[in-house]
């Protein structure tokens, strides 16, 4: 399986979706495409024909503004027909810009306001432990999201309850909505923070597919403490002019020539 090709297909699909919908956040989405690709194609135990299968691994996209990336991944993985994505953000569509679970197979939780995913993942993880279930819970946060107090309430909870079936992934592209994280609320020393809350912490290149797979496999085996994977990423990854003006592309969609140039780079 060529996950690199799959990831590029997902990027191309997102480029088209956001272009037609003239919707924002493409750089935030490109930042997580490799993470989500590896999760859905290599790691998560799923049944696309039975999205509510009790033994499935759960994945929550807490940075809901990257919903288009997960929709495209779910379609690519076979949860629903890719043609359905043509309705993304169209009037009357079920595919909202921020991820929604309503009538979309494979989406566990609707998000959009930041700081909601980790507390919910904690509830899922604790429940699985109480029920002695084997599945794992993965939750993907943005770095800017870690400004939210609810994230740290939840980090305390996960550490205290030793939720070793929980894997927190942070998309650490170091750019939040309108500025750099280090200029707004510096998260550093980021690794130490999560360690001090009782997490097993791993730092990786969030675009290195082999490293991601290895790291996720290891996280699944971790015992006695939750895992936090700090994935160093590049906002806008895959399209040079988006990588060069990361903040702008949080708000824009590629139109006209930009679209053609981006598509060429992703080919």
């Amino acid at each position, binding site marked *: 399986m060529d996950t690199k090709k799959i990831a590029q297909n997902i990027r191309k699909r997102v480029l088209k979706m956001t272009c037609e919908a003239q919707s924002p956040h493409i750089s935030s989405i490109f930042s997580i495409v490799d993470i989500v690709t590896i999760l859905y194609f290599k790691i998560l135990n799923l049944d696309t024909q039975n999205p509510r299968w009790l033994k499935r691994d759960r994945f929550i996209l807490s940075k809901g503004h990257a919903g288009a990336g997960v929709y495209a991944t779910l379609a690519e993985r076979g949860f629903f027909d890719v043609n359905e994505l043509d309705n993304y953000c169209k009037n009357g569509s079920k595919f909202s810009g921020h991820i929604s679970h309503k009538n979309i197979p494979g989406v566990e939780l609707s998000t959009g*306001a930041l700081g909601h995913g980790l507390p919910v993942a904690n509830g899922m993880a*604790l429940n699985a432990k109480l029920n002695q279930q084997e599945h794992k819970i993965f939750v993907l946060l943005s770095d800017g999201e870690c400004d939210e107090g609810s994230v740290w*309430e939840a980090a305390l909870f996960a550490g205290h309850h030793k939720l070793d079936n929980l894997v927190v992934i942070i998309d650490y592209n170091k750019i939040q909505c309108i500025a750099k994280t280090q200029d707004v609320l510096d998260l550093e020393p980021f690794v130490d923070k999560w360690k001090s809350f009782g997490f097993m912490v791993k730092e990786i290149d969030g675009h290195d597919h082999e490293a991601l797979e290895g790291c996720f496999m290891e996280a699944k085996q971790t015992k006695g403490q939750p895992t936090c994977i700090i994935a160093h990423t590049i906002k806008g990854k895959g399209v040079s002019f988006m990588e060069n003006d990361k903040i702008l592309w949080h708000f824009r969609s590629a139109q006209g020539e930009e679209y053609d140039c981006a598509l060429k780079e992703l080919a």
Partner: protein
Amino acid sequence: MRDGFIKVLTEVAKNNPEVMFLTGDLGFKIFDNFITQCPKQFLNVGVAEQSMLGVAMGMSLEGRRVLVYSIANFHIFRALEQIRNDVCYHEADVKIVSTGGGFGYGTAGMSHHATEDLSIMRALPHMTVLTPGDAWEAIGATQFMLNNKGPFYLSLEKSNINSQKIDEVFEFGKIRQLRDGADLTLISVGSVLSEVVLAADILAKENIFCRVLSVHCLKPIDQDAIIRAAKETGGIITIEENSIFGGLGSTVSEVCMENNVGSKKFTMMGLRNEFSAIVGDPTYLRHYYKLDSEAIIAKAKKLLK
């Protein structure tokens, strides 16, 4: 109300292992029996209301019926977005239980007075809002809540009164009539009901006869009982230890106007764009904010002039 709530909770949870009770580090000693009987169904999540609502949400997605417990303002205001986006949007099986509704926490101060909770919970889609007026109604409301799916808000106050009539069976959503009379309708939510009943009985001695209605379920509202009150009695007074904006007064007004039964005489008793900032016990506060029987009697007489 709280004792009855815990008793019902314990009975239901013993037979339903999917029931989970979370507290935001509140309820000193009162849950000891529940913990003894259902040790795996109790969790103190800490002073972390957003976390508590999230954990409840995650557990409910996995098939549990989860209760979250705190002093009203703490969980519903701090975690309002979690209640709206997570619990209500997902129509999750999460029950939000508040203690100390209205002025219940008296001298503790405005931070602890729940005087806008009903307005805000009522505005949320899919949320059922339970507002029992005494201990008996609280038991009925709790039983219904624990036997039905979906988001609920239950406001518990301090009342040991049992207003059950002979052979009366609790009926979810149906406004209860505790007195009848054609001159006026006195309609209330929560434990201020005791003041309303007292006022009605004193007024009756002066030949002013009031229908007394207890709204133990603010949402969905029993429209029929309100329409009948508007048509059959001389006017309506709404009484609530809550803001008149969005609470019972608003609800009754909306029902009357939408059904073209605008009451001839109508007034709302409750907080008007103010905090209950005066220091005092619940009785004092009811008197100060003109929500005691004395104030209700005066308002009724004024309205009938």
